[in-house]
């Protein structure tokens, strides 16, 4: 009896910093946020209960809400798959036992590391400006460039290209995954005369499925949360005709520019639900295409 108490004591002692943080910075705020989403709060007075007003407005009258969903989904749907395909492709290229793999790995990973920084956002804005590098390169091929950022149709693609440029992080995870596939599976396939294509989708992909799944979920969650590049490139406005108004920028402006804290909280909760739904769907469907190897001999 006493032993359990003593064990608990030391366990909780070590857990204390996290426990405090969990309640004060996680659970507490989540619940408060939920509460605030049903109020009107501009930081001056006290929050005023408005019931479902925020949500009703959001779904029925707020055109910008739907615009930001469209922009964000557009971004996620393009950025995540393209980035993962790039990551897998380059990982497979590098996996063939190159001696200089370390160097290439570092080169391709560097953009991932720097990508979230303001410096890169600044850079990107200039690369895609009307007289920027991208248009200059296109001019070499005789193609007339456009104002990528000032044109509402194309601005989101500057963000998507930035995301693809940062394929290094998922690439590293894929590299580790590829290394985990036993070599003799491929050898057995060789003896059976399997084509390279068949080896890829009959062995490589299925064996990588857990890693692909993990990467996919992680990347989707990250993509929904994109902020700095969109903010900087659009100068905090959300871009021409709201074409860069990703969800977090919209949320940020509602909260800290217009001080509509209640509404912003509602937006935050909708984001949470969307991310939760995506994750749940991913996990639910994973049973069908992810096979975990259970090494029990």
């Amino acid at each position, binding site marked *: 009896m006493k032993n359990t108490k003593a064990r608990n004591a030391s366990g909780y002692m070590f857990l204390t910093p996290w426990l405090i943080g969990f309640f004060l910075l996680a659970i507490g705020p989540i619940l408060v946020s939920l509460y605030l989403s049903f109020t009107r709060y501009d930081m001056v007075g006290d929050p005023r209960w408005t019931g479902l007003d925020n949500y009703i407005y959001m779904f029925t009258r707020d055109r910008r809400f739907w615009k930001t969903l469209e922009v964000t989904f557009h971004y996620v749907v393009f950025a995540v798959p393209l980035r993962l395909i790039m990551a897998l492709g380059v990982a497979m290229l590098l996996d063939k036992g190159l001696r200089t793999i370390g160097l290439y790995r570092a080169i391709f990973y560097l953009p991932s590391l720097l990508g979230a920084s303001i410096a890169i956002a600044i850079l990107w804005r200039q690369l895609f400006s009307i007289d920027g590098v991208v248009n200059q390169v296109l001019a070499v091929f005789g193609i007339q460039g456009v104002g990528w950022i000032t044109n509402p149709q194309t601005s989101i693609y500057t963000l998507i290209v930035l995301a693809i440029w940062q394929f290094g992080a998922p690439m590293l995870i894929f590299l580790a995954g590829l290394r985990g596939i036993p070599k003799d*599976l491929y*050898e*057995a396939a*060789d*003896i*059976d*005369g399997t084509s390279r294509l068949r080896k890829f989708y009959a062995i490589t992909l*299925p064996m990588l499925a857990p890693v692909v799944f993990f990467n996919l979920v992680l990347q989707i969650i990250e993509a929904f949360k994109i902020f700095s590049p969109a903010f900087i490139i659009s100068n905090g406005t959300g871009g021409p005709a709201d074409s860069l108004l990703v969800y977090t920028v919209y949320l940020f402006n509602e909260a800290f520019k217009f001080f509509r804290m209640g509404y912003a909280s509602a937006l935050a909760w909708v984001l949470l639900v969307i991310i939760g739904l995506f994750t749940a769907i991913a996990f639910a469907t994973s049973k069908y295409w992810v*096979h975990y190897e259970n090494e029990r*001999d």
Partner: protein
Amino acid sequence: MAELKLRKVGKSYGTLSVMHDLNLEIHDGEFLVLVGPSGCGKSTLLRMIAGLEEITDGTIAINGKVVNDLPASRRELSMVFQSYALYPHMSVRKNLAFGLQNLKMDRAEIDRRVDEAARILQIEPLLARKPRQLSGGQKQRVAIGRSIVREPQLFLFDEPLSNLDAELRVQMRVELASLYERLKTTMIYVTHDQVEAMTLATRIVVLRAGKIEQVGTPEELYTKPANLFVAGFIGSPKINMFEATVTGSGSQRMLELGDFGAYALPPGLSEAHNRLTVCVRPEAIKPESGAIQTEGRVRLVEYLGSETIVHIDLPSGKTLIFQTHQMERHRVGETVRVGFDPGDQHLFDADGQRISTEEALFA
């Protein structure tokens, strides 16, 4: 049918040569076992035959056709891997059918072969399961099944039983032997376990450091080992080895064997030898009998039920092992007299090579 000719086969990794000028002929329908300590090159050789490793030097020919440039899938062979190499996400049936699908065989034929192999190996109830639901022995049978369905002319086995526990290994050995009896196809089998080699092989190739030490039937290797290495490698418990010198001259020459004293040299032994190694198998040494005797103190007794293995310390400090089926129990510390007959000795020269003797002269 498949017969192989390996000519001057060599293997190097960069500047490091691990095999050089290896020559071997494998006859159709035999069960050839490549055996040797780890690192001797047996797996490398097998993989070169399979087409999974580059042949740096020399040629390997199957049925007269040089296969150096032929990819593995066109050599009409199949291979069973040590780790089974089953595709974890496919059912057993799909695992068995996978290779055949590459050959664009029609569905009915594939199913027929899969069912046949499953019947032979008694894995029919497992066809719908996934590899992770199988035990080690079942996985091994599926791996063997996968190689059977191809109906190859040559079977290759790379230490297939190493991952199994002892009891299972014995069982699978029997099954492999009966499989061979049934199919009678050429089989090349790699193992480090000399018991597997002795029980399964029609011929054994003993390898060490990339060189063939001896090729022969299990009997030949056991009764006429070509050198000290083979003598020590084949047979368990390990053969006893004693240093001996030739003393005297002319017809008065004697073999001076340390603890055993001196005794007459076998006739016909060349004058050139004066330092020899005498080897005697543990079962050839008997207590209280034999023409050449010595005495020692029992150090360890291993009682196995059907037989007893006794380790004794000889006066010179060396250890002698003998094996007996007799019922009397030797006790540690007691002195015992043991001996062997000249007909049971194997003589090796100063370089470790076998000296053939006229055994017919000795009873």
